[in-house]
């Protein structure tokens, strides 16, 4: 191979927010036609790096304190300009033209009051001087290139009229409209469904091949890395931990951190807990139908039926995994079980009592038996309550603990979820995400429930943190015989904890069976599609199975 000068070369990059340094001397090169993946957990400085390259970091309140970012000029690949010290006007010429960026959140990264056409046109006018018909035609072509159906019509639509996947395609089209030399993609698929994610990844790959650009791909998902990257950089707390070819990394990670990361990543096919033999049913759902809205004559929305005739049984000591893509009705089912919404029809049998029609008072006695852990550990804990009160609240409400006994109980609960006992005097915001989720579990445990409904309980957490939380849940199940209804859109995680798996699609259970059977011999077409979309490691290295990892949408894509 001929010597191929890097198109972008970062040397000793230091980025600081105020007095806090977020990136401590990062160096790397990207060559034309190459995909470089930047991985690391939340807060490791990935976005800071990406934003520094475009010098957008200053707008976010940060600063490049040291280092250079050299971009090869378009005329001569051997001469470079240093983006770190370029004048704003010259910089603006490069942004969107030679270096383009796709952001994580397709829902909020497009201007809600401008049409798609106008937003694309802006770039075209700026860098290509195109206006009117010409611009429109170019914009249409850009949309066609990212395989958006009916591109002509999209030009006059507003972002809110498009689904999340389409919006991300628009973002990509916008980034690629001037055919940049470098594309920076900051977690472009994290907010998307697995199936959509697969399509987007394929699209980026295809376009890269066609346009020959360099791609800096930021992700925390090793599965995605294995699908798309040529080389990988592992970042931790702003430090470069490891750099190498993808195959090398997966085959023989050099650093402890990379190894730990790989180990925590759940991989499809790792095997599920063995099914229980005929457990005694603790929760039985029969023909549950749940819908929203359509209340009064003045109601804005037409009613949405989120759950359509679901029947399920949960046995004692069993974990039932519930998977399905975003918006399929998983949470609605959970909320129905918890009686946070009332079912339109159907029966909920909880330990022999029908609870679907009980009023608030009568229901209260049953609430102690079934508890819920929510997806977002930040929002599920009242920020203004002390931990002691938070974790003992259910028990207190059920009269299981007198006011004076709450502190002792809290310490006991904290210990059971492996949190320091002195945590009782703190507030929720003083904990990390994983710790908060432990608080939620402790809270649920305070009433010694027989069933815990975990709705995306680990989706918001880092791989390693998520791993620790699922381990905790498994331990609790072992020790106390609690049954779990474990809801997730991530099949790999579900596999790891579930005895049985139910697959939900558009409000219905399309497949239900023992975990191994559902995963290895899926009967329903949708299940097969779901499994196929999970990113797989296509190196022929260590991992026989597939790699995938938890990724949770922050804002769910409405369907």
């Amino acid at each position, binding site marked *: 191979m001929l010597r191929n000068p890097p198109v972008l070369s970062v040397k000793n990059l230091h980025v600081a*927010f105020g007095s806090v340094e977020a990136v401590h001397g990062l160096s790397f090169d990207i060559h034309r036609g190459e995909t470089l993946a930047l991985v690391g957990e*939340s807060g490791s400085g990935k976005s800071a790096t990406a934003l520094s390259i475009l010098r957008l970091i200053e707008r976010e309140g940060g600063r490049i304190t040291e280092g250079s970012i050299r971009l090869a000029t378009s005329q001569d690949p051997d001469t470079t300009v240093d983006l770190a010290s370029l004048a704003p006007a010259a910089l603006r010429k490069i942004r969107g033209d030679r270096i383009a960026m796709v952001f994580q959140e397709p829902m909020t990264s497009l201007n809600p009051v401008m049409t798609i056409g106008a937003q694309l046109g802006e770039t075209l006018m700026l860098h290509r001087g195109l206006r009117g018909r010409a611009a429109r035609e170019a914009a249409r072509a850009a949309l066609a290139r990212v395989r958006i159906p009916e591109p002509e019509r999209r030009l006059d639509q507003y972002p809110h009229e498009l689904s999340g996947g389409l919006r991300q395609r628009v973002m990509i089209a916008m980034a690629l409209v001037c055919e940049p030399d470098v594309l920076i993609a900051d977690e472009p698929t994290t907010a998307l469904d697995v199936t959509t994610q697969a399509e987007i990844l394929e699209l980026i790959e295809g376009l890269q091949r066609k346009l020959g650009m360099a791609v800096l791909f930021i992700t925390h998902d090793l599965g995605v890395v294995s699908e798309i990257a040529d080389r990988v950089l592992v970042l931790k707390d702003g430090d470069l931990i490891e750099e190498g070819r993808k195959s090398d990394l997966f085959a023989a990670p050099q650093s402890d951190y990379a190894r730990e990361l790989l180990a925590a990543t759940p991989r499809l096919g790792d095997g599920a807990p063995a099914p229980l033999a005929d457990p005694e049913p603790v929760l039985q759902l029969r023909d549950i139908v749940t819908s929203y809205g359509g209340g009064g004559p003045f109601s804005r929305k037409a009613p949405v039926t989120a759950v359509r005739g679901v029947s399920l049984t949960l046995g004692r000591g069993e974990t039932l995994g519930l998977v399905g893509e975003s918006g399929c009705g998983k949470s609605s089912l959970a909320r129905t079980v918890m009686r946070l919404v009332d079912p339109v029809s159907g029966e909920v049998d909880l330990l022999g009592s029908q609870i679907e029609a009980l009023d608030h008072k009568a229901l209260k006695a049953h609430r102690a038996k079934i508890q819920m852990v929510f997806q977002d550990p930040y929002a599920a804990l009242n920020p203004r309550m002390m931990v002691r009160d938070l974790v003992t609240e*259910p028990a207190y409400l059920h009269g299981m603990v007198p006011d004076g006994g709450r502190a002792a109980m809290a310490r006991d609960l904290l210990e059971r979820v492996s949190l320091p006992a002195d945590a009782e005097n703190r507030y929720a915001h003083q904990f990390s995400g994983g710790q908060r989720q432990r608080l*939620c579990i402790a809270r649920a445990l305070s009433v010694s429930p027989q069933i815990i409904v975990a709705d995306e309980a680990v989706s*918001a957490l*880092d791989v390693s943190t998520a791993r620790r939380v699922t381990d905790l849940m498994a331990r609790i199940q072992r020790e106390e015989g609690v049954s779990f209804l474990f809801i997730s859109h991530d099949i790999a995680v579900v596999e790891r904890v579930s005895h049985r798996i139910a697959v939900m699609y558009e409000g219905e259970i399309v497949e239900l069976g023992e975990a191994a059977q559902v995963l290895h011999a899926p009967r329903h077409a949708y299940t097969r599609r779901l499994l196929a979309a999970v990113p797989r490691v296509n190196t022929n290295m260590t991992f026989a199975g597939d790699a995938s990892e938890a990724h*949770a949408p922050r804002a769910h894509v409405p369907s």
Partner: protein
Amino acid sequence: MVSLADPILRMRRRKARKGQGADIIQKIAMVMAVLLAAAAIFAPLLTPFDPLGQSLLARLRPPLGFERYAAGHLAGTDELGRDVLSRSLHGLRLTLALAFAGAVIGLVVGGTLGLVAGLRRGWVEDGIMALVDMQIAIPFTLVALLVLALMGSSLTVLVFVLGIAGWEQYARIVRGEVRRIAAMPYLDAARTAGAGPLYTAWRHVLPNLVSPLVVQFTLALSNIVILESTLSFLGLGVQPPQPSLGSMVGLGRDYMPTAPWIVLTPALLIVLLTFTVQILGDWLRDRADVRLRER
């Protein structure tokens, strides 16, 4: 990753808290607030003259440093020969008391209605929001005018009128907050823990309302000060001879060309007072809204 919030948030909070001290204007406002409060509270001790004591022979005397200055009357005397400074300080006291009482009444009335609207939904909410719309559509000055003309402007009525002046603001804020909070998972969490509506409102909703309400409270305070002076302009404010900042300005305005000092001291106090309160309110708001501080 979704959980971006944790470290960033913590850092931002820290920054925000550090940021407090940075703004000189806010520092000045805080000092001003303390001074004004002290002046109001200790007015009877600070003032050498009876605020009601007339001296018909020493009317309209200018402040210290001008010709015809009447000894002791630092800020001059008014149209009945009363000491402007003494009246201003007592006026400040009354005005602040009125503003506080009014803001509290508004808080209680509007807050309750907003809370009910936010929690009860349905026609109760529609009804309350219709009231809010109505209140918005009828300029408040008119309402005040009617009520005061009807009931005569005694202090009690005035407090009541000033109190209901801002109720709809409170109601809207509280309702909005309540609805926002109601959508928070921790309310679901409380419900699944077996909490009833009263417990939820008391333990989970109210504490989260505190900071927006504190902000609104400060804004209401300064609005009421202005409103009181406007009512005084129309002759409906605090009644003479009782001094309030607003009534001193409202009744003294005819003397602005000839004896501007009558109006100057109280007007200055009004401006200082509202200015201070506004800045404090804004500071509180910025503090309450983490995002605002950061961008």
